[in-house]
């Protein structure tokens, strides 16, 4: 369970003995992991290993599934996000999420990106600024800048997904969670999203769940391997992919990454 040597005090996000239990069986058991600022950690593992549950525990989205119990904690900049006094609404502002399928709202591109900002009634100038900044960061700006009022549904799949990223970025989170963001996209769109991720990892913390080990190799700094709800191994990407130590990791990597 050794992570990269990052002093816990400096981690933006620190997962501490996190367990998620369903009625009959544990989905996650005792996962501990720290995320330093400005990095991309890929979370990989066979299907059913709990990686989606893991990432959804990082912004309290796991609470939406009835019947699950969360033990342990997750610290965001030193604060316990599962503290009873903390409302999930605030957690999710700081820790954004992008889903598997592009989930643009049926509104204009601009309104999609501005969604999070409108909730707190920022001024129009603030919103304008934040929207264009977010669209730039997600790499979509050049493609939509001429007509921000067009319906988001008229964009291609890859563009929609980058719009979802922009939408999450607009509220300036420190952490962005991505749950298999390219699994519904064609190779060209995938490549664009991966380019965006590579740029973003210089700015904020990214946590990427992916079943595509090649993708992990391309974009991540660090790979965490989960198996049956346990964190088996974590380390710099090259280390894990070329010199995996645990036999389970070996089995997974060689099976997937020829």
């Amino acid at each position, binding site marked *: 369970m050794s992570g990269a040597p990052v002093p816990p005090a400096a981690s933006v996000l620190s997962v501490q003995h996190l367990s998620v239990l369903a009625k009959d069986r544990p989905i996650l058991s005792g996962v501990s992991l720290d995320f330093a600022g400005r990095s991309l950690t890929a979370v990989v593992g066979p299907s059913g290993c709990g990686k989606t549950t893991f990432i959804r525990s990082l912004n309290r*989205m796991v609470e939406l599934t*009835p019947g699950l119990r969360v033990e342990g904690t997750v610290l965001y900049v030193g604060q316990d996000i599962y503290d009873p006094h903390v409302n999930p609404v605030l957690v*999710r*502002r700081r820790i954004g*999420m992008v889903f598997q399928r592009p989930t643009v709202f*049926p509104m204009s591109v601009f309104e999609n990106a501005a969604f999070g900002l409108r909730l707190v009634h920022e001024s129009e100038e603030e919103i304008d600024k934040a929207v264009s900044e977010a669209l730039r960061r997600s790499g979509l700006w050049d493609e939509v800048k001429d007509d921000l009022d067009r319906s988001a549904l008229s964009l291609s799949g890859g563009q929609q997904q980058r719009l979802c990223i922009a939408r*999450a970025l607009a*509220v300036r989170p420190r952490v962005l969670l991505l749950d298999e963001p390219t699994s519904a996209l064609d190779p060209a769109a995938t490549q664009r999203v991966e380019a965006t991720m590579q740029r973003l990892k210089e700015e904020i913390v990214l946590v990427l769940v992916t079943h595509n080990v090649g993708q992990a190799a391309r974009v991540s700094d660090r790979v965490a391997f989960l198996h049956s709800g346990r964190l088996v191994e974590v380390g710099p990407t090259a280390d894990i992919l070329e010199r995996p130590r645990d036999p389970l990791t070996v089995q997974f990597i060689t099976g997937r990454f020829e």
Partner: protein
Amino acid sequence: MSTTAVPGPPAESQPVPPPSSPDGAPRTVRRRGAWILHTIVPLVPALVPVAIVVAIVFALLSLAGMSIGLSLTPFSFRFRGPVNFGWAFFGSDFAPPYHWEIGVFIVGSFLTAIPALFLSMAIGLGIAIASTTYLPRSLTAWLDPFVDLLAGIPSVVFGIWAYAYAAPYFGVTINPWLSMHLGFIPGFGGSPGLPTGEGLPVTIFILTLMALPITTLLIRDALRSLPRDLWESGLALGATRWETMRRVGLPHGMRGILSAGFLGFGRAFGETVAVAIVLGGASRYPTNFYGETGTMAATMFALLDSAYGNGQFLALLSEMAIVLLAITLAVNIVGRRFVSSFVGYEIAGM
């Protein structure tokens, strides 16, 4: 589509293009005669609803065209005879056999159905949002069917309850209270009406309850149709449940909500027996919010007894039937355009 891809009766020497089918399923090639069998014959039962609608229109027109003596001539629907379609149409002198203006009932129907529509939409929206967003499945599993049960209470049973309990309660308690506190709004002050309570308020109350199952069901379906992903995306951006529902869920379900409005209105507009029991055959323009008024449906039902022997009276009531039918059909057609499927709506009495 390939015509010979399936084993079946061999193609005849004169191959006929296969008839089109609803989803392009492959068809075997058959003789010309079979084509008739496959298209014309099914048409016969399928046209039954059309035939019934035509028959209804025909029947109403014939009734309306009857003059004294019960001559049943179809197509004699020129609105001749006692009904005057000029300004006097909206006069309130409905006192057959001398005066015949039915406008008062058309107004009455709208006057009762429209507020009922708004109320049932508002309440239905609230219930639907509560059910889809705030309440756990363990509660909604039995609460939702409970609301649908409201539609199962027969109109007449509802009517006698309303007549015995709701109406007097309105007459004695609610109407005077409203008159006292809302009196500053024009039309809401003045005499609170009879203590037996018949009048607009209780009628609107009844119609609201009758339309409620439909509006609730349709709005609930519309809100449920929001994909889970979209809902979670809203929450993941830091929005509260209310904010997500308001900004994402409601716009997404707008079509279904609109159809709920139209169909709920249709229900309230055509409600007959419950209103008839409470209002009787009232036929005046109400002087204020609490006065009595008649609706088309209720009047048609309540006064038919008196019209049995009287051809002109009958013709008059039938003209009301035509107007009622026309409006209801129009509302239903518009409302249905927004609904994608009809699953389970029968439960709500639609």
